């Protein structure tokens, strides 16, 4: 065929399946570790995990996180530690969803949901405050009117924690490396790890 072989190529393509996903009607399953809108998690007793350390703000390459820590009130502490996140804002006009804040967080306070279908009509909506970021009474993300939740985006917000290990070993030396979450409890291990939720004393260490 030589120079005319291009016609054969285009002809054959007509009978091959289409690659297009008709997006708004058909949604592909989201990747397991998709980076989306953030949430600020709580412990099982309802205490906030954030301790206002500002490591997330420091590591953020887009400078989209603003944190101010404050001392916990002695009679009504917000978080178990000494301090808590007094102001916590994420500017979603800047956020690039790189997940570095999640890696930097020492208390697993900030994690990301898989939600990416949200858009705003003004700057105030784009800047999420602490009230909007902290999970609700059921441990689920609070849903804003301009967010399109299809379901399941906030099921495994902290799964990333359980899939990695600081030591580089997939196993975690016989004890869980993560804390419990409001609404979910202490989650089981991800694939490739052993689910041993005993305390060190129980495990005989």
């Amino acid at each position: 065929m030589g120079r005319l072989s291009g016609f054969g190529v285009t002809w054959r393509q007509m009978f091959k399946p289409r690659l297009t996903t008709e997006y708004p009607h058909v949604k592909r399953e989201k990747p397991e570790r998709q980076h989306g809108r953030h949430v600020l998690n709580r412990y099982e007793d309802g205490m906030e995990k954030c301790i206002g350390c500002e490591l997330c703000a420091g590591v953020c390459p887009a400078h989209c996180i603003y944190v101010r820590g404050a001392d916990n009130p002695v009679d009504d502490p917000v978080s178990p530690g000494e301090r808590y996140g007094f102001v916590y804002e994420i500017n979603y006009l800047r956020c690039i969803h790189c997940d570095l804040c999640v890696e930097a967080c020492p208390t697993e306070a900030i994690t990301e949901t898989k939600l990416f279908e949200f858009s705003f009509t003004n700057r105030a909506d784009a800047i999420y405050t602490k009230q909007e970021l902290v999970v609700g009474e059921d441990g689920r993300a609070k849903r804003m009117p301009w967010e399109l939740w299809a379901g399941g985006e906030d099921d495994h917000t902290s799964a990333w924690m359980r899939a990695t290990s600081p030591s580089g070993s997939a196993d975690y030396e016989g004890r869980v490396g993560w804390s419990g979450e409001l609404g979910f409890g202490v989650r089981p291990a991800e694939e490739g790890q052993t689910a041993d939720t005993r305390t060190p004393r129980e495990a005989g260490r």
Partner: protein
Amino acid sequence: MSTAMKALIAVDPLFGGQVSWSVLAVVLIKVVIAFVILLVSVMLYIWGMRKVIADMQNRIGPNRAGPYGVLQTLADGIKLFFKEQSIPSTADRPVFRLAPYLSIMPAFLMFCIVPIGGTVSILGHRTYLQVADLPIGALFILAMSGLGVYGVMLAGWSSGSKYPLLGAVRSTAQLLSYEAAFGLAVLGVLIQAHTLSTHGIVWQQSWVNAGSFLRDWFWFRTIVPFGIFLIAATAETNHPPFDLVEAEQELVGGFNTEYTGIRFAIFFLAEFMNVITMSAIATTLFLGGPSGPAFGFLARTNVVNVWFLPIVWFTVKVLALLFVTVWLRASLPRMRYDKLMSLGWKYLIEIAILWVLVSTALVVGRDQKWNMFVVAPVAAAVAIGAFLVLYLAIPKAGEHVEEFH
């Protein structure tokens, strides 16, 4: 009306008797229907083209407006209609406004002489199913395709801007170059048909039996001009791979850079109208127009055989040619400018001229009752000799003339 006038205007049986109001009404109906058919078919062609190309690229294509996205072109047209139209301050305003219409009128006028059916009867008048059957039909085709150049040229010139001018110059050169090969290819048919009237050309290709496909339709007898016609018509309509007029990478936008809104849309309408018209002309000249097998079990005068089937055959042939243009668009990359000129001037025109010479010799020899066993070899030998001389005379790449590599 004198006989000479009648012969000049038309040989349609519609004008055989007194020209009455109902005759005028028939003409008006035909004009309006032809215009509407052409506009609607442009709309459907653009949609079909995008769908087929999408198929060839494993995509879905337009599917938002209307069922299967069939109204996409209409939506685009409405959008362009309501957009602001700007005219550059340096533009020649009257010409700038006129140019889009100059480019669309020839496309429509050319379609007017295409027979899309047989002889039918409307409002009690027997008439051909074509807007007009000019005695000079084939010359009219050439004239109109020549006039189409003015729209492009004046658009580029009147924009008062460098890029449209450059685009217009190069497209004018392209259109004029291929006009020659185009005309010679049409001549190949005229030599066989002995008439300029499109109705006459189609009538000679009438369907007799299955052998008519090869024997009566002109495409096989004029296989070389048929090929040249298809190539030249593709270049005339600025269709890929000859779409240098709209080579965005080189020309910003081409001759229509400064156009916006509905005027811009009219250029595109004209371009696609030209594609459809050229396919219709190719069908008329080479593929027998509306001729094709009729239903034998129905009477020859049955409405299906008179009205329906000829239109169906015509439509099928045009659609097949249109599919080929889309296939070309999806498969071939744009030609380099010097390759384009080289193909037109050094090959197509040469081959077309030689074909015309040989077929003229054969036709004249047959009419004069010369010995065909002498005429045919002599004509072929002269043609081959002439081709070799021309081939040696024309500089090729890398020889004598410096070319871009």
